[in-house]
């Protein structure tokens, strides 16, 4: 094929106008999709709202939760199911009956229920990264599917929970059906063979399914004498996010960021410098006399300085 000067000019013109169109499309997208407010120097931050220790995790408090997230400059959240779902444990209702009612509700939630909550979050500029739900043996298959469906409507990319190896085996088929992942959340009990606490246990869990990813809890892993930096280096491609907090080694106590043994600064800089798409969800358990919103501000500042 020969290309005349006239053809070349046409191609060039088309290319230029194409680039211009692409640029204007990008600008339009940027205007309608502003960057997440807690994306700092390439590191996406978010919050595990457990940090608001004074705020009961109920759907009635969801409005206050969202206001606090915005106040703290958080654009991403790990949303526990209790912020979303109704509770049925009224006085006089047995635990078994309340569980049955919750299951029934999950299987047929009111029309548009999850969409309404998604709209509420969207309006505040808060994205749900993960949906926290503690799957266990009481969940039916249909209920697990329904939970994933609800989480997906909320915008979650995965479901995370505090369960061990046995439950993990059971939930293997579910995340793939919904185009989502399951986040394995490690704790610090090295004496429980079913728990995710050691690196070996987490590797075993991850090997069950490509749809399983780690939600590496730096506080718990540090307390369990784990090597957070080494784990991130070795398994970063299987880590969806981190619960970023500080604790002391050897089952030590929680501490404000920088006062424990968790290598928070190193971890955040590794994520920043390697451009790994790992979301850093702040979560802390140390005590404070300050209002929790102020404490979140302080801990978030510590992280911002780490990636500045």
């Amino acid at each position: 094929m020969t290309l005349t000067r006239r053809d070349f000019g046409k191609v060039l013109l088309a290319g230029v106008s194409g680039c211009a169109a692409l640029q204007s499309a990008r600008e339009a997208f940027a205007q309608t999709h502003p960057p997440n407010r807690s994306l700092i120097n390439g590191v996406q931050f978010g919050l595990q709202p457990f940090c608001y220790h004074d705020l009961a995790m109920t759907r009635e408090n969801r409005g206050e939760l969202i206001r606090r997230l915005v106040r703290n400059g958080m654009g991403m959240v790990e949303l526990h199911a209790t912020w979303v779902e109704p509770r049925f444990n009224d006085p006089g209702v047995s635990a078994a009956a309340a569980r049955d009612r919750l299951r029934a509700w999950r299987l047929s939630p009111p029309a548009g229920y999850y969409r309404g909550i998604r709209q509420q979050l969207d309006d505040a500029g808060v994205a749900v990264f993960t949906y926290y739900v503690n799957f266990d043996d009481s969940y039916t298959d249909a209920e697990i599917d329904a939970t994933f469906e609800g989480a997906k409507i909320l915008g979650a990319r995965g479901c995370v929970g505090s369960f061990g190896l046995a439950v993990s085996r059971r939930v293997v088929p579910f995340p793939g059906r919904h185009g989502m992942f399951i986040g394995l959340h490690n704790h610090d009990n090295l004496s429980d063979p079913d728990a995710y606490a050691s690196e070996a246990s987490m590797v075993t869990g991850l090997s069950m399914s490509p749809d399983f990813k780690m939600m590496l809890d730096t506080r718990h892993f540090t307390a369990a004498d784990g090597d957070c930096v080494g784990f991130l280096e070795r398994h970063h491609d299987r880590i969806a996010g981190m619960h970023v907090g500080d604790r002391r080694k050897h089952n030590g106590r929680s501490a404000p960021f920088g006062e424990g043994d968790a290598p928070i600064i190193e971890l955040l800089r590794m994520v920043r410098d390697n451009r790994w798409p790992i979301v850093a969800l702040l979560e802390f358990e140390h005590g404070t006399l300050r209002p929790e919103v102020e404490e979140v501000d302080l801990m978030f500042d510590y992280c911002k300085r780490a990636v500045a």
Partner: protein
Amino acid sequence: MARILTSICVVAFAASIAAQSTPAHRSYDIEFLGAPLADPVLQHAKETFVLFGCAYCHGLNLVSRGEATDLMHSALVGRDENGNRIGPLLRAGIPQTAKLSPMPQFSDLSDQQIAALVTWIHYARQQGRYQELTAAPARAGDMAAGKAYFERSCRTCHAVDGDLSGIGRKYDAPALRTAILDPKSLKVERSFTSARLHDAKLEAAQQRHHALLENYAAEEVANLVAYLASVR
């Protein structure tokens, strides 16, 4: 020039006064912690309990949250004397448990910090147990069982033919119950004056009654009331 310098000084002075007059508890989470207590020792103990994260699992007023041990009814706390049981447990933690979140160890805390935590645990337990016992419906007690309890637990300091002579004539059952649970004579404001600092008798009496309050069963209180009401 002098006028400008004077103005600057006045403004700076006013600003420093304004800064000093900001509330002392500006960053104090009053909604979660409640208003500061009048007793500074207890307030310090409460703040220590919060600062080391105990309140988030065990509850500020010992209404436990989640899987944490219920300190309001724990037998170990009930048997503790001045931290002799709570202290070592705090320092060691509870690593070996089938539960997901073992209790962390607090080995780096000073003796004073441990003492403050212990103070709050006992104070909060006393408050909670008092509320539980006074909210429980009044019941008829067993006089003989009450006498046995008295001989076992009260006799070292009290005598029905001594300081409690005719007590059943002076007080009715509800008043006796209140006096057993929260004796007025022991309600003395905490003080660090030299005289009060070494009032070992009062301190021992307070400690003894507080230990009883922390461990009373509603039935034991009813029995004791029945016995004391019979002392005429």
